[in-house]
């Protein structure tokens, strides 16, 4: 069984069915890319994995590290080792990045983290993300630029050391330098810590910096195409429209190649 196992997931929000039977498996040490056009259900999947209350699971299940987390609270999922990097990180006025990180780390521990240990971890993460040290004393996401918010997401990921991280359109709104920094950070956490990653993206460009082992195409709430990096190349050549014509809405989720999660 994979570390993150999504089975036949159906999800509704505001009375509309957005996900219509998604199967996906992500384990530690793997990098997956989930691609799809706007409205295909990518962000719904990301929010549902983290337990957002606005999304109702009507069928199917999610398990993580062997536990069924289909109806677990978001903080329980986080403590179990799941991480979501938000597409639109939320400002937390009045709380510094460093203080927030300390709270989040302590939420996962019995004993509060020691000052020295925390400082050392923070210094390491700050280097990894190539941000100024003063960054950590600013209020979290409050007045941050788009790029700073995304760096702050990866900084949190580097500090919290999850087993599996879902990156929801982390590449959107980033200039090329920021994109490279963020992507290198993700790659290093994968290489050094064995992080499992699910990169959710509309575009291919982040995949030039982080090499996925498995690629999945989401269309109208179903995964219609799966494979290795060749799927990205095909998408670059043909675009979503061709794929939509081939595996159009209403079709059962056709699997073109392999079963990556198994």
């Amino acid at each position, binding site marked *: 069984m994979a570390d993150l196992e999504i089975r036949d997931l159906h999800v509704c929000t505001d009375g509309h069915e957005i996900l219509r039977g998604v199967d996906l498996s992500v384990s530690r040490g793997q990098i997956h890319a989930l691609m799809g056009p706007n409205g295909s259900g990518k962000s719904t999947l990301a929010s549902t994995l983290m337990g957002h209350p606005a999304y109702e699971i009507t069928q199917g299940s999610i398990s993580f590290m062997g536990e069924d987390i289909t109806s677990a609270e978001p903080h329980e999922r986080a403590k179990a080792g799941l991480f979501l990097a938000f597409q639109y990180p939320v400002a*937390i006025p009045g*709380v510094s990045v460093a203080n927030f990180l300390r709270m989040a780390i302590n939420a996962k521990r019995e004993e509060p983290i020691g000052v020295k240990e925390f400082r050392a971890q923070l210094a390491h993460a700050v280097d990894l993300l190539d941000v100024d040290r003063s960054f950590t004393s600013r209020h979290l996401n409050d007045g941050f630029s788009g790029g700073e918010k995304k760096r702050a997401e990866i900084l949190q990921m580097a500090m919290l050391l999850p087993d599996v991280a879902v990156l929801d359109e982390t590449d959107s709104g980033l200039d090329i330098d920021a994109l490279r920094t963020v992507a290198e950070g993700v790659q290093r956490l994968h290489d050094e810590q064995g992080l499992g990653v699910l990169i959710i993206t509309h575009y291919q460009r982040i995949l030039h910096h982080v090499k996925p082992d498995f690629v999945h195409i989401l269309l109208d709430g179903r995964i219609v195409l799966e494979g290795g990096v060749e799927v990205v190349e095909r998408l670059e050549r043909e675009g979503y429209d061709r794929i939509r014509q081939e595996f159009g809405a209403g079709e059962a989720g056709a699997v073109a190649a392999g079963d990556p999660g198994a």
Partner: protein
Amino acid sequence: MPEAPRARIPRPATDNGAAGGRAGGAEAAGPDGVQVKPGGHREATLYSALAGAGAGDGRSLAELRAQALRAYESLELPVWRRSGFWTTSLQKLELGSLRREPDAAPALPEIVERTLPARPRAGRIVQSANAIVQLELDPDLRERGVILCSLKDAFREHPDLVAPWYSKRLTVDRHKLEAANAAFWSAGAFLYVPPEVVVSDPFEVVYAIDARGIAQYGRTLVLGGQASEFRLHEYDLGEDFEGQALHAGAVEVYLQDGARCRFAQVQDWGAGEVFDVSTRLVDVGRDAYCHWLPALLGGHLVRQHLELAVSEPGGEMAFRGLFFTEELEHLDVFAVDLHETGPSEGDVHWRGAATGQSRASFEGLIQINPGAQRTHTYLQIHSMMLSPKARVDAIPSVLVSADDVSASHGGTVGELDEAAIFYMQSRGLDRPAAVRVIVEGFFEPLIAELEDEPLQELVRGKIARKLAAAREDIEAYATSR
């Protein structure tokens, strides 16, 4: 937005007129500048600045007490009303059943030891009920001319220093409880910081009520000499008891040329049925500065008239405040940013939250008197509702009688941000922890301005405890939306 100048001339500071002149209930500006209007069944006092209409005009303390006593005897318990918004009525106060005599052998109340941070301090004076139970002053400061003692002793030992300032800008008869304070105070606190004396540790002035049935009259007079610098921490603390008690307080702080004062107040009267009706006034002299931050954190029914007046050119002030009401508490704050002369700078920033079925009402008035040219001031009030039955009203108002000024106000009313809660949950914080982070973050800009670690910890701790107590209420509110 700056408003067009209006014709409203404040009265001169010295003329106080006859006692209780408005008690008959005619609709008119009373001789002391206070307006009343006839209500359906009862008069209500309108919200207006003291604007210098003090009672102290050279008369003796005995004469002022006599004037106050006449007013006390002729007035009924006060009601404040903002039509359509709130009514603050003291009618349920059983004043006749409260005692104002000092206890036979007063001791330092436990609530004081429990609450005040252990820290270096310049001095401390504690009034429990109506007796001073602790008085300390750094001997070195005493050597340099600093005075800290009861106001009663100050009248005896330093009459020439005290008399000209006593009640200089405070009235003694606008309402029954103000009159009671002026007539009956028996201990009080007096602090004098001589010119050029700079003190970094705080002076602590404490009023404590540790049992039901007490009517406490607090009277504080603070004089900051030219170019002096000091911190003033006032604590108003009540033990958790059942039954009624009253604190009627009057605080006046006069900062002379170039004086700088950071004045913080932590008020928490506990779970008892404590009524607090107080007036606090800070007068900022020429080129003087005051940072004033009351933290109003509990009381059954609390009415605060807080007035920060820039009385000489070059005066500058930062008027901050925070409040947190819970359960059935009722809070009524009238905060005045008064500019009597220009150039002057003002900056008013308040934040408040409410849980349970509590009620918090805030009226913030910017008043710029005629001739107070080149005054710049801004008032902002932010509030957060944490329960379906809690209510916060905030009314900013601007009264400008000069034309070369800028005066503006703004504010927000908020609820808990569910997106922020989910974000924090996704990082491993449970829901109550996330709510706490949001509320603390909401108050943090003001708490940070206390610039005093022990005080900051005290205020943060009190807010955290209130949130923990209201946890179910907050949860129910979130799921109902």
